[in-house]
């Protein structure tokens, strides 16, 4: 109907209002709607920028504090293993040699360092031999002792020995310790720092990559330079293995049963609600459960990866069941009809068709559940995983029952220590934890891509 006829013959029933304007000039409503959309986009952009800035700041602070942990100052000196000191009886029997403590080895190292300094022609001023020993980590003597006891044939020879420098010396090269702070510190002195500079110039001391950070066990409060993540990484790997071996099959079986086989009634509704609730239970509650059940009731050892793994399994189960059920639900019912229609049994329908299609969801859920478990600290504190463990756990399966530490607990533990050297260690450990998490999440993404939905 044209405009003209409208004015000529007005109708009894009102015509619906019509937009009458050029397409080139937006009307008021369109302008308002567009402005609304522009504003919304702007807010979204601001939110993204804030989130990104927070992430950049976080990564920057962690990496700037943590990367130095991967490098360490070492002193390289020839040490003469004097048989008269180390094996007084002269039998070369390790059992007898064990009576020589680290103090004896410490003296040898001090002597060797003094000899090396003299050989390089460095003036040590008023420093005593005891001061010289203080340049080197207290751990060095123990390292040397372990080496000799493991191989008594070394007695009487001169070996090239790479010793960790003392944490304060190391801190000086990393900028943590200054001449002023050293003057107030009774663990080191400006003279030692100046000597360290000279040793570096002479090539006796240098800073390099420290694999020990990843493989050595934890060390005591006075020796941050010797502390490593070895026991914690093994403990965490053991626990993840336990979680994967228990939570994945149990979680998938429970989900498949609930989703495909269980009758839909009040009981299954109740179970469903409870699984959702369990996923929201604070993790420390699982720690209390683990303490009272696995340790006090079942009598499993404290600090053991098996207990940590069981506790984390309980915590991870609902977090695997929920996404798995969602993935099973998302498989179109027509696929089930198709399989049942050609005479497949219920189980064949599930295993041949439904589960493969749900696999990406199952795997992503599992990996994200594992990643959460990997970073979990609170429940492990309650079952004693926070203990100071220097001995490596044995090989599986019996090793699962040996005391061990775990990455997040080790981080927490190190932040509690007095020596500033441990701050750097803790940040370094966070980087290791983040690398593990990134690897797991990447695996989740790759698996999801590979099993991409194909219906």
């Amino acid at each position: 109907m044209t405009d003209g006829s409208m004015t000529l013959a007005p109708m009894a029933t009102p015509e619906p209002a019509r937009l009458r304007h050029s397409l080139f000039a937006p009307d008021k409503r369109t302008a308002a709607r567009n402005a609304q959309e522009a504003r919304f986009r702007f807010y979204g952009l601001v939110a993204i920028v804030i989130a990104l800035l927070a992430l950049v700041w976080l990564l920057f602070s962690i990496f700037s504090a943590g990367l130095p942990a991967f490098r360490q100052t070492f002193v390289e000196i020839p040490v003469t293993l004097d048989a008269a000191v180390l094996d007084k009886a002269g039998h070369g029997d390790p059992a007898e040699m064990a009576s020589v403590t680290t103090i004896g080895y410490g003296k040898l190292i001090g002597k060797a360092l003094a000899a090396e300094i003299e050989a390089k022609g460095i003036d040590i001023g008023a420093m005593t031999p005891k001061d010289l020993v203080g340049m080197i980590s207290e751990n060095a003597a123990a390292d040397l002792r372990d080496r000799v006891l493991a191989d008594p044939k070394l007695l009487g020879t001169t070996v090239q020995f790479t010793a960790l420098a003392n944490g304060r010396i190391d801190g000086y090269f990393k900028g943590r310790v200054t001449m002023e702070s050293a003057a107030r510190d009774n663990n080191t002195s400006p003279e030692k720092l100046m000597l360290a500079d000279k040793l570096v110039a002479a090539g006796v001391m240098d800073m390099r990559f420290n694999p020990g950070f990843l493989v050595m066990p934890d060390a005591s409060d006075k020796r941050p330079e010797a502390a490593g993540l070895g026991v914690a990484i093994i403990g965490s790997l053991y626990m993840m293995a336990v979680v994967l071996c228990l939570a994945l099959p149990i979680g998938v079986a429970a989900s498949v049963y609930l989703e495909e086989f269980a009758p839909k009634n009040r009981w299954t509704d109740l179970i469903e609600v409870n699984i959702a609730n369990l996923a929201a239970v604070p993790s420390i509650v699982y720690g209390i459960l683990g303490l009272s059940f696995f340790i006090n009731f079942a009598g499993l050892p404290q600090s053991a990866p098996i207990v940590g793994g069981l506790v984390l399994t309980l915590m991870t189960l609902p977090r695997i069941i929920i996404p798995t059920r969602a993935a099973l639900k998302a498989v179109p019912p027509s696929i089930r009809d198709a399989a049942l229609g050609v005479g497949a049994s219920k189980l064949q329908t599930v295993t041949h068709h439904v589960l493969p299609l749900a696999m990406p969801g199952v795997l992503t859920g599992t990996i994200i559940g594992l990643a959460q478990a990997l970073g979990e600290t609170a429940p492990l504190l309650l079952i004693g995983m926070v203990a100071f463990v220097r001995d490596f756990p044995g090989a599986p399966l019996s090793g699962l029952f040996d005391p061990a530490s775990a990455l997040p607990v080790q981080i927490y533990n190190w932040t509690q220590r007095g020596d500033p050297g441990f701050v750097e260690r803790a940040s370094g450990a966070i980087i290791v934890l983040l690398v593990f998490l990134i690897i797991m999440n990447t695996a989740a993404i790759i698996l999801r891509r590979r099993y991409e939905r194909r219906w």
Partner: protein
Amino acid sequence: MKDLRLERDVQTETNKIEARKVQVYYGTNHALKDVDVDILDKTVTAFIGPSGCGKSTFLRCLNRMNDTVASAKVQGAITLDGEDIYDARVDPVQLRAKIGMVFQKPNPFPKSIYDNVAYGPKIHGLTRTKAELDEVVEACLRKAALWNEVKDRLQSPGTGLSGGQQQRLCIARAIATSPEVLLMDEPCSALDPIATAQVEELIDELRSQFSVVIVTHSMQQAARVSQRTAFFHLGNLVEYGETGAIFTNPKDPRTESYITGRIG
């Protein structure tokens, strides 16, 4: 197009399936009321009727696919060769191997074309060797008029085919288990006239071995391929009889107005 009406002769008078007083409820919705039907062996039976009248529902009763719908309740008696299929001793899995089904919406497995067809024979152990299985797959795809289009890409996914090709793939999959009864729910609704003619020819061919039940919205198709026709309306079986009689001389006024296009 071959006019199949010329060859409309019922070869047997034995009943393959007998349904008596079948009621279906979806929750409180009484979807099917008092349906009595005898489906003859080696015969094509067409179900016609307006949308939502219960054709699919009844079809799904015949192979107990309604078991999978939690809200569905089936009453009455349905027998296959005289055996009650709703008897407690019957395993619906075995029943469905005997009564194949092609669904209203094409639903190929998200697997290769080959695996789609081979799946049924594999799980029922119908073939012994790979060569035998290959033969079955080829024969079924040929019967479903799909072979020429897919013979070069048997390993590509069945879901990558067009809608009509998918439906023919589902037909091939259903006949691969050589069922005794084939239930087809609007198998041609997504097909072009040429493929439709091929499927209709297939249906007529299958009639020599199985009985076929076909739901269709096309009167012409029902008239072309079937020997028996059942007309459903609002959950009731209004009229059932020889196809020629239903189309030329309907007894019920509702049937007459439906086939002449006045209700639907």
